[in-house]
């Protein structure tokens, strides 16, 4: 229920920059996911939003008002910590009720909403236990209930589902999304799981080394990554990145010359092509299968060719090719993404195909 803005926010720890000049704005009720490698400043960013850390520079705004100096307890932010941070001396019920203590909610009413929220995250049978008697996944759900009970203006989730099994994770994803919509609470979810980010969020913020690498819809990040980092971090199995030289004749990768369209100023480039866009259907570049991994619904192959080692996916559950088999690989220009090798940024208006 708040519009949230970060303006040129930096957080230094001594000489190290945990967060480096981040600007970001979230609409009221928006659900954003933050993706990025370990140590890139995701938790630090959340902590600054929650009022736990003060930004070294820059401003944080809620609904247009600067909140840098507003204490955590006055921000009405719900946060689920990576480490759950449940109070060890309190029972699950007391943990969930804790935020309501400071809101002067009548006791009966508080307990009623605690039980409702416990129902929602499926921990009703655990209310009398101490946190030390819970599994990691159960603790995460208690933490989630505690963050939600006070109907926060901003919900910050620091990897809230990392310890759940696949089934529970799937249902919790939907639950969180449903609760989020119902309450209309602006939400930021930190995750390492791209599927989670892609399925839950309206917008993905890809972070690297304290900076925002790219933000946009899940689809935009996947199909039009702006940087080599964003391209390689998002997508599983990861994108193929093949180094080559762009010339007037086409794209030269090793001894092979690929046809190109669009601008052809000579420069070093990286050709990005996602594994599901490489096809092995009898024409194109000759390659030898060096490995085949059955992933369940599909099979991931690695093939060696003049382009280098290339991953590609086939939608068959049993491997179609064996290691050592010869295939021919091709891909569409529409699916190729070219990056300037020097600046590591995407080149507009140029594509290659094989």
């Amino acid at each position, binding site marked *: 229920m708040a519009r949230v803005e970060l303006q040129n926010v930096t957080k230094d720890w001594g000489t190290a920059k945990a967060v480096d000049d981040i600007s970001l704005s979230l609409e009221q009720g928006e659900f954003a996911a933050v993706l990025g490698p370990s140590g890139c400043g995701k938790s630090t960013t959340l*902590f600054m939003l*929650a*009022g*736990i850390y003060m930004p070294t520079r820059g401003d944080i705004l809620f609904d247009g008002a600067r909140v840098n100096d507003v*204490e*955590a*307890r006055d*921000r009405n*932010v*719900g*946060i689920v*910590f990576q*480490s*759950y*941070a*449940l*109070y*060890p*001396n*309190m029972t699950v019920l007391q943990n969930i009720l*804790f*935020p309501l*203590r*400071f*809101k002067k909610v009548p006791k009966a009413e508080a307990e009623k909403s605690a039980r409702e929220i416990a129902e929602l995250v499926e921990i009703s049978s655990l209310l009398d236990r101490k*946190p*030390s008697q819970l599994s990691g996944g159960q603790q995460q759900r208690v933490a989630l209930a*505690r963050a939600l009970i*006070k109907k926060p203006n901003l919900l910050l989730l620091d990897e809230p589902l990392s310890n759940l099994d696949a089934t529970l994770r799937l249902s919790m994803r939907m639950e969180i999304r449903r609760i989020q919509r119902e309450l209309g609470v602006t939400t930021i979810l930190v995750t390492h799981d791209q599927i989670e980010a892609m399925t839950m969020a309206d917008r993905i913020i890809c972070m690297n080394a304290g900076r925002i690498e790219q933000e946009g819809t899940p689809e935009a990040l996947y199909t039009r990554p702006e940087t080599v980092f964003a391209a390689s971090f998002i997508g599983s199995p990861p994108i193929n990145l093949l180094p080559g030289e762009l010339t007037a004749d086409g794209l030269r990768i090793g001894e092979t010359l690929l046809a190109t369209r669009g601008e052809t100023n000579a420069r070093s480039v990286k050709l990005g092509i996602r594994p599901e866009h490489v096809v092995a259907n009898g024409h194109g570049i000759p390659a030898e299968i060096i490995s085949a991994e059955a992933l369940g619904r599909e099979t991931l192959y690695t093939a060696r060719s003049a382009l280098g080692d290339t991953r590609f996916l086939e939608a068959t559950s049993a491997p179609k090719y064996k290691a050592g088999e010869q295939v021919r690989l091709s891909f569409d220009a529409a699916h190729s993404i070219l990056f300037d090798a020097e600046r590591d940024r995407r080149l507009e208006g140029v594509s290659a195909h094989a």
Partner: protein
Amino acid sequence: MSASSSYRQATNFAVFLGPALVFLLALLVAPIIVDLVVAFTDMAQTVTINEFTTKQFGKLVHASDDSWLGFELRGTFYRALSLTAVFVFLTLTIFNVTFGLILALTTTALPDRLGAFFRAVWLLPRMAPSVVYALLWIWVVDPTERGLLNQLLVHGFGMAPVNMALNHPMALIVISNGFIGASMGMLILTSSIRSIPQHLFHAARADGAGSLSVIRHVVLPALRWPLSYITVFQTLALLVSFEYIFLLMGSSRSTMTMAMLAYTKTLAPGIGSGQYAYGAAITLILIVIGMVSALLLYRLTNMKALLAKPRIEVH
């Protein structure tokens, strides 16, 4: 095979635990047994035993049909017991626990360097030799206007000088012992506060808790075990402590606690010492009191449950 392994077990036991056992027996168990035996003799200045008798206890209590216990405490003993109770209770509650807790809470809330500095200041009395510390107090409470306290009272507040040793002997020994005793609580509690995961503080803040609520709901629960430990340990230490009382007050009747009484009757220089059997009898009672209080406190603070299950979880 099994014979040699059980032999090995036996030798391992002897090699590893032997020294500790010898130490335990020679230094801890033996003195208690000696004390127990001597308490029922007539050992005095000559350090010889002529007869076994309960007359030492007769100096402390006398038979009485009016009392439901069948005996009454004699004046000295009654006085020593009540002085001990007051001394231990006040020093423990005011200084060793409460003040230690306050010091730990405040010095951990300060910036690191400053906090460390204040803790170091509070450790100084423990580092100083007892005699130096006692001399310092003797100067502080000197009844004339030379004493620091009286300088403050007279010149600072325009009040009349006080004679602490004469008029407030209990306050003097409680405060002087407390200033030393508080530092142990402070150290143990500081390290306990430090070991509380940072995220718990963050979570409490985000949940809306102010500083006092954080102390009440996050800090104090984590200090339950160390607080019980300090209580039990310091009670035992205070029950038998007499050195500062002696250094500050000498064999004054106004501060003649059980430990002081035992010391005065045996090893203290001056008239009345050398009554070893009498001292042993007093000490024996002190040992019993110590055991009973330790057990009571142990039950009261639920130490068993706390020992069985650590309540601080670190993720």
